């Protein structure tokens, strides 16, 4: 059974790659074919992701659906299982898999409108998605890093070709910063594999090594920052977050969705997978620092968002703020806090994906994203406004939507461990209300600016994907035990996590 499920993961991993390959041979003119094909792939992936999430046994082993193929072994310094295609999910990655499925599908639908070099877009898009799945599934350091990079690199072209404002700058900066971060991970990998001296990249083995002292505490303390900062860049760790506003500002809609929705989570996920699980001691030692940075990020992002005048900048900064929560949650190393972090990854993922979807839908018609240009568009785009309000309220952490569930857990964890920072985090949530409502007031309500009299409301396709995202937000917001149950076992058994 487990083996068989492992092949599900393999499928979810291979499918996008094959899709990209297939598209490669599709003549570029046949846009429609590319779209339908991608939509189908996205739907299948969504199905697989949902299956993975549901099939993950809350009460079973921590790692499930494992599948291990020896890849490179008994050569050079590599021993048995030196590098193996080792797939599997734990509670956290199962949740994030679901997230990926949802966001990817929504993103595919949104990319429907794309006209310019549509085929190339989908090729890169699927490569990106494959990278994301791979990172979540990999239980082998080599492949983890493989897919991690794979997920980052296509962004350059995706933004550079199809982007909007200052796209070249944004694309280059984003790519360089993210890859720059992965340099840190790289160094960490070298050090860990060398220090463990087992001649293997197999993660479970290395976790064991981290636990049983094969990696000395001093070593762990030295190396943890490499992982933390390396992944932190992708997770929007302050002050290495600046790619987020610019990158999002330039990125095309569906890329922003996937990027802010899923990719940023790779960073936080990496901190768990590499940082906490391989180097528990180091994690324990450094977490306070991470906590401080996370808190700064949460407040900083929220405050900076207060006065932005560009939709995407607001969401960019609020992403920084929310990923700050994730970091806070992780830094608590408390079972509730860490679960909260995982929940927040999901919540922020769908929420921000929805936000970018809507911004895109507006920008495509209005060709401006300056708040002050708008006003009263609730009159012409009711659906759009409702969706945006839902997203915004989730952003604010309103009960009944996923944001509250996640943030609540984070706060609880934070108060258990670092009350003061918990308070600051909650304060940031209040500020979030301020900038969100400010935007509502300026853009959606008030007298309708006649310039926008003939804006169109969400198209059916957009409505579908928006509905999908809203649904998942409500699901987590109203009845979150299915999520927490799957997380509980994993989180509680993370090394160094207290109760």
């Amino acid at each position, binding site marked *: 059974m487990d083996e068989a499920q492992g092949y599900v993961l393999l499928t979810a991993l291979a499918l996008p790659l094959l899709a990209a390959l297939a598209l490669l041979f599709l003549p570029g003119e046949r846009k429609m074919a590319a779209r339908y094909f991608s939509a189908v792939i996205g739907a299948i992936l969504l199905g697989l992701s949902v299956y993975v999430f549901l099939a993950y046994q809350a009460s079973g082993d921590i790692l499930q659906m494992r599948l291990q193929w020896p890849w490179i072994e008994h050569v050079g310094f590599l021993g048995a299982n030196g590098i193996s295609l080792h797939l599997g999910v734990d509670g956290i990655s199962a949740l994030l898999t679901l997230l990926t499925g949802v966001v990817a599908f929504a993103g595919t639908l949104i990319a429907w409108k794309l006209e310019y070099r549509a085929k190339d877009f989908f090729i890169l898009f699927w490569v990106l998605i494959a990278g994301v799945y791979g990172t979540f599934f990999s239980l082998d350091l080599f492949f983890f890093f493989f897919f991690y990079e794979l997920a980052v690199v296509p962004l350059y072209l995706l933004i550079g070709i199809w982007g909007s404002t200052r796209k070249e700058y944004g694309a280059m900066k984003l790519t360089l*910063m993210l890859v720059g971060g992965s340099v840190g991970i790289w160094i960490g990998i070298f050090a860990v594999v060398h220090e463990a001296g087992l001649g293997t990249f197999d993660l479970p083995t290395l976790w064991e090594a981290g636990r049983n002292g094969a990696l000395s505490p001093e070593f762990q303390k030295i190396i943890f920052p490499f992982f933390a900062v390396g992944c932190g860049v992708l997770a929007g760790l302050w002050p290495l977050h600046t790619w987020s506003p610019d990158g999002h500002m330039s990125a095309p809609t569906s890329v922003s969705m996937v990027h802010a929705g899923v990719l940023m989570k790779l960073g936080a996920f990496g901190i768990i997978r590499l940082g906490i699980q391989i180097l528990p001691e180091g994690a324990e030692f450094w977490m306070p620092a991470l906590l401080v940075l996370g808190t700064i990020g949460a407040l900083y992002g929220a*405050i*900076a968002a207060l*006065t932005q005048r560009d939709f995407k900048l607001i969401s960019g900064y609020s992403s920084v703020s929310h990923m700050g929560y994730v970091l806070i949650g992780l830094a608590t190393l408390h079972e509730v806090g860490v679960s909260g972090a995982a929940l927040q990854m999901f919540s922020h993922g769908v929420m921000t994906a929805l936000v970018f979807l809507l911004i895109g839908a507006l920008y495509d018609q209005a060709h401006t994203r300056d708040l002050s240009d708008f006003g009263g568009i609730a009159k012409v785009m009711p659906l759009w406004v409702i969706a945006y309000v839902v997203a915004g309220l989730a952003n604010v952490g309103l*009960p009944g939507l996923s944001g509250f569930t996640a943030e609540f857990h984070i706060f*609880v964890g934070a108060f258990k461990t670092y009350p003061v920072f918990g308070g600051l985090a909650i304060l940031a949530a*209040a500020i979030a209300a301020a900038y969100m409502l400010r935007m509502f*007031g300026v853009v959606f*309500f008030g007298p309708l600016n006649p310039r926008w009299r003939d804006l169109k409301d969400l198209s059916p396709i957009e409505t579908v994907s928006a509905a999908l995202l809203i649904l998942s937000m409500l699901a987590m917001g109203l009845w979150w035990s299915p999520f927490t149950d799957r997380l*509980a076992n994993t989180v509680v058994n993370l090394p160094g996590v207290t109760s």
Partner: protein
Amino acid sequence: MAEHAWILAAVPGIAFIAMAAAGRKLPRQGDWLAVLCATAVFALFFAVLASFLGLGENAWPVLNSIEWTAIGDFHLNMGIAVDPITIVMLAVITTVALMVNVFSVGYMKGEPRYWWYFAVLQLFVASMLMLVLADNLLLLYVAWELVGLSSFLLIGHYWERRSAVEAAKKAFITTRVGDVGLLIGIILFWDATGTFNILEIIHYVEAGAIGDTRLFVTMMFILLGAMGKSAQLPFHVWLPDAMEGPTPVSALIHAATMVVAGVYLVARLLPVFELAGDALLVVTMVGLFTALFSGVVAFAQTDIKKVLAYSTVSQLGFMFVALGAGFVGAGMFHLFTHAFFKALLFLGAGAVIIGAHHHQEMGQLGGLWRKMPITAATFLIGSLALAGLFPLAGFWSKDEILHAVDYGRGSWAFLLISLAAIMTAFYTARLFIRTFLGKPQDAEVASHASEPGFIMTGPLVFLAFLSIVAGFFIFGGFGSAFGFPGGFSEFVFLHHPEVFHVDWGLVGLSTALFVIGTFGGAWFYWNGRLDRATVIAEWQPKVYEMVQRKFYFDDLYQFFIDRVVLGFSYLVSWFDRFAVNDTGVDGSATLTGYAGFLLKHLQTGRVPNYAMAIAAGVVALTLISLAVGS
């Protein structure tokens, strides 16, 4: 039935979903569905009440909860607890909700987003009921936020009006600030006791689970939440602006139910407050200041709804004072009565606004009693009840509060609260006189004014009736007629019951207060004369302006937000652009590029230079390694 009281909340919840989904398509945009739902809830309440009383004191509170989630040692249960306080709240909510729903059918006719209005109304009712039913603070907080949301939506119902949007925003954010405190308080409780369940928390605290200072701090945070919702100083600013919403909404949310959530919360946690050092004193002070302050401000308001709003704030202050004195009974009783007559007054105001075609400035009204007698009559009853005329509802509850303060806080508080009572009577008189009596100020307004239809006057009458009789629940006899002997206070205040006895001295006193206030008001404003008032105003123009400008609170906040908060935000964004991004990130990139630029000039393309590099390199390597080696 009582253990399934959650159905009360479920019904309007479902109604909300149904109407939000399909309301526009329904015939009459589904207002009948709303009314139906409200009636059903009203009926269900009596079922609950019956079974609750049937179970008898020993079975109270009626509990019913399920495990929600568990992460490791972190367990979270959700459920309901029904006890007398809940029952009182249920009574108020269901009754007023029904009235308002009915009234709205008339009031909102032909307004934009009719269906949406009713849908949100149901959402509000659902979450309000959930709030009072919740057995744990987390669920309470959830409901707390949801009522905030529906309030936000209803205040901003006319979102084409900038002012409405601003008001909605103000309400949401102001209360939000309080909510932050509340959430912190809740989590602090959990941190100390490991549970969110209110009864367990009380039990733990009584067992001394939390140190004194810590408990005090926690309670202050909780109080913040309560003050935010109940618009106590300094969070009161949002409530008057909230009058931008449709008037029935003001009646339901901003007079009868939501705003008293804070009072409810404090009452609910009073046992904890009592143990938390001077927490109760703080509650009293807050209440007193609010009562006096807003009483004064109410003098200078000219918009009838604004006057009512400030009077609401002031009355909430009364309730806080009562609670601060440690008398849940008094507080809850005033909540109970106030809900009815204040709802009555607001609906009456609504009727006036409809009748006078959306004129609500006293300056343009006056002499309306001829045109709309029923409204005038009911409004009069409401006013008298508010002012505290014996034996109307308001009288008894205010009497209770005076008594409570005298008993619990001593004379200084007693004096102040009496002063507040006088003010109440004063501005109420002013309001009524200037609106209904005297000569019409604005001829054409008066000429077009007309009595609204039964659909609106009906609720007025019913509420007027309640405003008269509700006070009698204070009497044990009257209470036992309805199945809870011992009367309201005992019913609510199970812990150390106090049998109510009419203290005639106090009755006399409060009547005196009423008389002073009312006749003061009458003396100033009788049949539309304003000269005496203007004399006062011109005697101290500064003071007058200060009062009219609500003691500059809003201006102060505005200044704080614009200058401090936003300024700081600009600062941060600037820092982010220039320091972090341009200098830190791009700077390092530029630096790297520049290093390359410098370096490339070594590559002169001339053989001798290259050879030089080689030779120099060799010499360097040799010398270095010789130096290192030896």
